[in-house]
């Protein structure tokens, strides 16, 4: 195996680091944690100007999956707010893969220029992991559809221009076969956004759809083919678009603080930090492997399931360890004097629990691995 990056890719990474270092000031990070919106328009525009956003769209052919991996890897290591663009680039990939020319012309330029974000309306109050059972209805009315229902965890709805929405269009068909996907403007009349604050600071939302009327031209993929469209998105999400290197920034901040506090001589601290560094390296290599697999024409979705379970569980363990090692100071939040690692320790301990839940829970991913990788029968539950 050859783990080196080509000179062009090294150059790409160097330019990325420069942009991130220039745009992601402490004020930007502070604003992210103050507002709960993990997005930076300034960053998105700077990345778009350099052509990095269009290169990051899966399947668009402007860049490759290795660049995609490095983009989110560098953003995550820097602690930069990237949730807005990771969803947006993923959905741009879906539009590119299954959208009509009309949709591509109207939607893609705004996404690739860094001017607009997409939010996702998949989960509902009563359907999360069992997302194929959702009940938000879209009913046909001539050339239009009328949508009624409610969605949960519509993160970034407060900032997004676009919404991708999974709806039920056939109540008689088996659950996976009666779903249809739409992608349309968030300012369409009839949509309400209610904030849902989380213990991890990041704001998410409940969204409500009351006789939302849209043209059939906003339908993404076939009528009753929504599950297939959704599969395109998930195959990207569980690959290389962030979420596997969160321990790196935490370790860096913790270590800086631990040095100053004289904790780095403690063997209990040293051993655990090495284990965190090893897990980080493994998570990095698994993600790098997915990028390489995708770049060489392979199917990286199942690898993504494995990587996600490993990386998020390792991050949870690491965030628990760093908080425990910090002791009482690890309880203090941002801006409090004496907060361990300026509050990062406490923040990560608060953020980590969600990572094994969103984007496919560990249990759903383990089902996937058991059935599709190990060839075990459909589970008895």
């Amino acid at each position, binding site marked *: 195996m050859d783990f080196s990056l080509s000179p062009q890719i090294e150059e790409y990474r160097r330019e990325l680091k420069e942009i991130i270092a220039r745009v992601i000031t402490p004020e930007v990070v502070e604003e992210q944690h103050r507002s709960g919106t993990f997005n930076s328009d300034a960053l998105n525009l700077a990345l778009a100007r350099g052509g990095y956003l269009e290169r990051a769209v899966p399947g668009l052919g402007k860049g490759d999956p290795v660049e995609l991996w490095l983009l989110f890897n560098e953003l995550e290591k820097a602690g930069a707010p990237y949730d807005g663009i990771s969803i947006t680039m993923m959905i741009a990939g879906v539009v590119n893969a299954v959208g009509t020319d009309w949709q591509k012309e109207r939607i893609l330029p705004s996404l690739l220029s860094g001017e607009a974000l997409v939010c996702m309306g998949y989960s509902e109050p009563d359907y999360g992991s069992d997302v194929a059972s959702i009940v938000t209805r879209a009913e046909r009315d001539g050339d239009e559809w009328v949508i009624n229902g409610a969605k949960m965890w519509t993160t970034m709805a407060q900032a997004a221009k676009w919404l991708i929405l999974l709806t039920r269009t056939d109540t008689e068909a088996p659950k996976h076969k009666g779903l249809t996907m739409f992608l349309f403007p968030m300012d369409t009349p009839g949509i309400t956004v209610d904030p849902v604050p989380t213990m991890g600071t990041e704001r998410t939302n409940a969204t409500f759809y009351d006789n939302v009327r849209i043209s059939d031209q906003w339908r993404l993929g076939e009528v009753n083919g929504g599950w297939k469209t959704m599969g395109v998105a998930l195959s990207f999400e569980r690959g290389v678009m962030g979420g596997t290197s969160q321990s790196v920034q935490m370790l860096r901040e913790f270590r800086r603080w631990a040095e100053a506090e004289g904790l780095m001589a403690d063997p209990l601290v*040293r051993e655990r930090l090495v284990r965190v560094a090893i897990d980080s390296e493994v998570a990095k290599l*698994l993600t*790098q492997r997915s990028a390489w697999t995708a770049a060489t024409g392979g199917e990286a979705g199942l690898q993504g399931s494995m990587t996600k379970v490993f990386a998020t569980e390792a991050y949870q363990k690491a965030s628990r360890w760093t908080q425990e090692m910090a002791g009482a100071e690890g309880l203090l939040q941002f801006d409090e004097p004496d907060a361990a690692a300026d509050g990062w320790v406490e923040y990560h301990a608060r953020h980590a629990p969600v990572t094994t839940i969103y984007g496919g829970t560990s249990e759903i*991913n383990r089902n996937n691995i058991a059935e599709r990788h190990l060839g075990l029968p459909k589970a008895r539950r």
Partner: protein
Amino acid sequence: MNLGLSEDQLAIEEAFTRLFVRESPPAVVRAAEPLGFDRSLWDRLVDMGAPGMGVAAETGGDGATLSDLVVVAESVGHAIAPVPLIEHIVAARAHPVDDVVEGATIATISLRPARPDGTWRLVPAGAIADVVLGVDGDELVAVRSPAPGEAPRNHAAAPISDRSARVGERTVLGPAADFARALSEWKSLTAAALVGISVAALQLGRDYAMSRHQFGVPIGSFQAVQHGLADLPALIDGARLLTHKAAWSGDQPAPGICNVDDADITDFDCLAGMAFVFAAETATRSTDRSLHFHGGYGFSEEYDIQLYYRRARGWALVFDDPSRECLRLADGLFGPVAVGAA
């Protein structure tokens, strides 16, 4: 970047897998206990040129890279082959004398320095090797003396034995610091063998879960069993990638770097230690889960998983506790503890 095996490596993998499937099935592994050595299997490896394959061509070997050798080592682990191929390959690279390169004489390395009385304690393959390399005081030496031919009864049925760093034909190879390279090579190859053990343990566990029926269905259809097994592929793939990265860094002419802050680690000694720790934990966990899902049969001598379970621990602990290896790694990753800081 290329995270696949080269054509040569695929050929190496196939050749060794074929040999071990034929010549080192579990019956051979069992028959080799308690010493843990099968002479005729070793002779077959000598016929193949395996003992000297990692030695440079100028000194009579085949010039295989560390990246090639981890492929060999994974097959050794997969078959838990009762031959000291990993130790011998490392010793031959550090001390390529003719009979060792050929494999007519078995060589090994002492992972720990000699004690003050000159004893290398519990040397891996020490029971069967006539040449032992290791550190004695501030020197790296090779000592040629007759192998005892027997080992203390041990967990892994491994041919370990105490050896003397002073008695025998003693050659000084260099300062003690020269041993670091050999030790990192051993860690990388042992990590690969532990990956092989993990792969085999998962296969055994998966196959047993499909064939064993309880409550009228295969136990592999129960989610609790599925999830226990589903944790393993990521660990195994991760351990393999880390092991290959260590080997890759060891094959580079220029030294690497160790930048933890940016998760950019290409230093051979760091990566070899990290691979050793992670592969040791992976093998421990894989054999643990697999044995457990075998139920009582996993604990019985009749089933093969116990052979893997014992070696998963023994092949790593003959060097040291992975947690202590973490403390050594901390010096490389974070810098040593400042004097007077503790």
